[in-house]
C-alpha cells in the first residue's frame, strides 16, 4: 500500500493542476472519457504487470492490440463470422501467442526483450498482410458487441455515465489482485522475479509460471484490443495500437512495479494508467500546451515521478539504517 501512495499523489496533483488550467476538465463527459481510456490502457498495463513481476518484459502488446483490433471487424464484416465465435477466436489467438512467447523464453532460453520485439514486428506485419493494409471497421452494425467498448451505464447524474470498459477493468483488476497477492501462483511469480534460481531450487515449476505470465499478458492485450476496436469502431492496421506497449509498461512502472521483478501492485498499475490518460487529456485541454509536445510531457512527468520516488525511497532507507545502528 505504501508504495502506491506516491502514484496516487501524482494523480491528484496532475488532476488538480489540469482542473485549475481548464474548466472543461471537471465535466461529466470528460471524466467519463478519461475513465474509458484509463480502463482500456489499464487492461494492457495489468497484462504487462504479470510479465514485469517475473523480471520479464513484453514489447508485443501494441501489435497484439493491432492484430486483434483488425482481425475482429475483418472476420465479422468481411468473412461473416458469428460475433461470439470471432471473439473466442481472436482471444484464443492472443493467448496462443503468449504461450509461444513463454515457451521460447523458457525452453530455448531466449531473452524476453528479443522474443517480444520480434512479436512486435511480426504481428503488425501479419495484421497488415491479412487486411491488405486497409482500415477495418464495423460500419454501423454490431452495436450489441460494441457496447463492451463504447457502452455507457447511465447513473442519472449530470451527463455522466459509467463506461462499460471500466466495469470490465474493475472485474479484471479484482481477479488480478487476488491472483497476484493471495494465490500461490502470485507468490511464485514474485519469487521468480526476486530470484528465479532460488525459486527453481525450492521446487517451484518456474517455467510453467513464466509461460502462464506471458499468456495472461497476451490475453489481456487481446482483450484490450477487442475493447479498443469496439470503442473506436474501426482499426487502421498501420498504426492501431502503435506504442501501446510502452504506455502499458509505463503504467506498470509508475504503479510501483520494478523492472527488476518481484514487486507489483494492481491498484498502482491502474492509477498509473490513469495518470498517463490525465496527462494526455491535459495536453488536449490546456490551451497553452501545444499538442505536438505530448510525448515529451508524458515522458518528462514519468521520469520526474520515478526519480522522486527513488530519491524518497533512498532517504527512507538511509534513515532506517541510521536508526538501526
Amino acid at each position, binding site marked *: 500500500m505504501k508504495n502506491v501512495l506516491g502514484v496516487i499523489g501524482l494523480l491528484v496533483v496532475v488532476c488538480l493542476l489540469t482542473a485549475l488550467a481548464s474548466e472543461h476538465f471537471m465535466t461529466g463527459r470528460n471524466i467519463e472519457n478519461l475513465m474509458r481510456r484509463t480502463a482500456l490502457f489499464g487492461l494492457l498495463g495489468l497484462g504487462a504487470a504479470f510479465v514485469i513481476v517475473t523480471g520479464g518484459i513484453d514489447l508485443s502488446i501494441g501489435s497484439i492490440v493491432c492484430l486483434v483490433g483488425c482481425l475482429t471487424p475483418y472476420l465479422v464484416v468481411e468473412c461473416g463470422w458469428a460475433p461470439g465465435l470471432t471473439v473466442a477466436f481472436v482471444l484464443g489467438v492472443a493467448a496462443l501467442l503468449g504461450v509461444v512467447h513463454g515457451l521460447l523464453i523458457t525452453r530455448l532460453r531466449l531473452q524476453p526483450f528479443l522474443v517480444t520485439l520480434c512479436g512486435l514486428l511480426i504481428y503488425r506485419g501479419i495484421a497488415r498482410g491479412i487486411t491488405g493494409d486497409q482500415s477495418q471497421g464495423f460500419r454501423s452494425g454490431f452495436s450489441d458487441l460494441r457496447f463492451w467498448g463504447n457502452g455507457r451505464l447511465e447513473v442519472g447524474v449530470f451527463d455522466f455515465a459509467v463506461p462499460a470498459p471500466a466495469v470490465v477493468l474493475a472485474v479484471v483488476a479484482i481477479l488480478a489482485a487476488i491472483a497476484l497477492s493471495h*494465490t*500461490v501462483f502470485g507468490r*511464485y511469480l*514474485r*519469487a521468480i522475479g526476486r530470484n528465479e534460481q532460488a525459486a*527453481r531450487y525450492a*521446487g517451484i*515449476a518456474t517455467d510453467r509460471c513464466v509461460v502462464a505470465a506471458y499468456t495472461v499478458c497476451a490475453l489481456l492485450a487481446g482483450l484490450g484490443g477487442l475493447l479498443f476496436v469496439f470503442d473506436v469502431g474501426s482499426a487502421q492496421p498501420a498504426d492501431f495500437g502503435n506504442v501501446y506497449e510502452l504506455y502499458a509498461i509505463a503504467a506498470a512502472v509508475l504503479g510501483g512495479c520494478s523492472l527488476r521483478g518481484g514487486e507489483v501492485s494492481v491498484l498502482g498499475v491502474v492509477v498509473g494508467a490513469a495518470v498517463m490518460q490525465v496527462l494526455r487529456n491535459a495536453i488536449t485541454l490546456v490551451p497553452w500546451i501545444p499538442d505536438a509536445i505530448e510525448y515529451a510531457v508524458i515522458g518528462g512527468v514519468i521520469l520526474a515521478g520515478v526519480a522522486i520516488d527513488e530519491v524518497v525511497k533512498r532517504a527512507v532507507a538511509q534513515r532506517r539504517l541510521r536508526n538501526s*545502528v
Partner: protein
Amino acid sequence: MLNARGIGRRFPGVMALDGVDLDVRAGEVLGIVGENGAGKSTLMKVLAGVEQPDDGELIVDGLHVSLTSTADAHRLGIVLIHQELALADTLTIAESIFLGRETTRFGFTQARDEHRAARRWLELVGLDVKPTRRIDSLTLAQRQLVEIARALSTEARVLIMDEPTACLSPTESSRLFDVVRSLRAAGVAVVLISHRLGEVEALADRVVVLRDGRRVGELVGEDVRAAQMVPLMVGRDLAAHATDHERALGPALLNVRSVTQDDLASETSMTIRAGEIVALSGLVGSGRTELLETLFGLRARSAGTVHVGDRAVRSGSPRAAIAAGMAFVSEDRKATGLLLEETLTTNIGLARLALRREGDGLLAAGIFPSRPNERALAHASIGELAIRPTDASRTTATLSGGNQQKVVLARWLAIGPRVLLLDEPTRGVDVGAKAEIYALLRQLARDGLAILFASSDLEEVLALADRVLVMHDGALRGELPVDEASEESILQYATGQTPT
C-alpha cells in the same frame, strides 16, 4: 608504508571492526587470519577504499589519508584482489589488464602497444599465454594471475589478496606462492588473507589474528605457526566440534545406482542409510556440486537410478526429488537459495508451498496461501533453529550469514525431508552458528534422516561425517570410514594419488 590506527566499522546490529591497528611494511608478506565473520574482509575493504571506516585513521607514507573510493587507493598504490574475481569474461587478457587505463592515440585504442606491455606483466607473474586470449578461456588460476598482473601494471605497492587459493589446485597454489615471494623480493607489501593456515605458515613473515572484529594477537617469524594461530582465532575450546558417532543406522534411504551425467566422469553409485551422515570431499571443481545437483534433479542424468526408500526419483526434476522426500541446501544461498528482499515467513514457507501437498495447513482451497499458518510455521522454525533476530516479518537480507543459512535449513525441514543434501553447509557462517548447525545436523540424523554434505573444510568433514566419499575429476575415487579418514588420506584421494 601503510598504517591503520583504531579502525572501527559498524553494520546494522554488528561491530564488524573494533579499534583495529595494522602496519603493512614494504617487502613483507603479512598474513591476516581469523574465523569467518572475524572482520578480515571488512578490514581489507577499508584498506582498499571499498568501504569507509566509522572510526580510526589511515596513514600512507606518514601522511593521513581518507580513501573514499578504490580509485583513491589505486593512486596510492593499494590494490585489492577480490575473493571473487572481478574480470569481464568477454574481454581479452590485455584489455582486462588495461581496463580503464587504455593506451590510446587520437582516441583509438592501441592494441599492439597494449599486447606488448601486457606480455611483460604476464611474464612477471609467470603466466605463459597470449595476451589476446579471452578471459573466459582461462582457468581460475590463470585469471587470478591476470588480476595480479593487472595490479602490478598499476604499480601497486600494497597488494591485498583475499583467499587467493580458494579455487586453486595445489600445483597452481604453489606457483602463485612463488609469484608472491618474488613480489616480496621486489619490495611489494603483500597482505594475505587465507583460511588455509598451512599456506599462511609457509608464506607469511608476520601474522595478525582477528576475532569478532578485534585484533587479538600478532605472531612474528618463528612463531608464525598454525598451532599458535588456532587458539587465538577460536578463543575458546573446540568442544563444540566434538564428534558423536553413536547413532543407530536404519535401512538404506538414498540409493544411487550407476548414475551418469555429462559433467561427471564416470558412473556413480552410493547408498546412504537412515541416521547416517556422509561427507562428500574433494577439491573445488572435483564435481561435488555437479553430483549433488544431479541427485536433486537440477541436472538431468543420462543414465542410472536414484531411489529415496523404495520410491524412484525421476531424472531432471527438482520437484520430483522434493516430492520423494529430498531437500537440497545449495552452496550459494544468495544466488540460488533465498529471496533476500522477502520476509523470513515467505522464505521459510516457500518449498512447502511449492510442494502443494493436499490437506497442508499452509494452503486454503488449494491455491491460497494461508498467511496465519505460514506465520505460525515461521515462528516455530525460528524458535527451533534459534534464528536471530526472531522477527519473522523481517527482510531476510538483514540477517547474518549464519542466520540466513538457518532460514534455508528451516525451509527444507518444513517439508519433512527423508534425505538432506547440503553443499558447503557452513560457508560464510560464523563460529557460533556453525556449531549450532553441526548440532542440528546430528540431531536430524538421530531422527532418522540420511544426510549427504559436500565440504571443502576438512575439519568439518572429520567432525561431522560417519563416512567420507572423496571425489576427484568428476568421479568418486575413495571411501573412508571416519576413523580411518585423516586430512592426509582424504587429500591423497582428492588429488588423484592412489594411497599406498
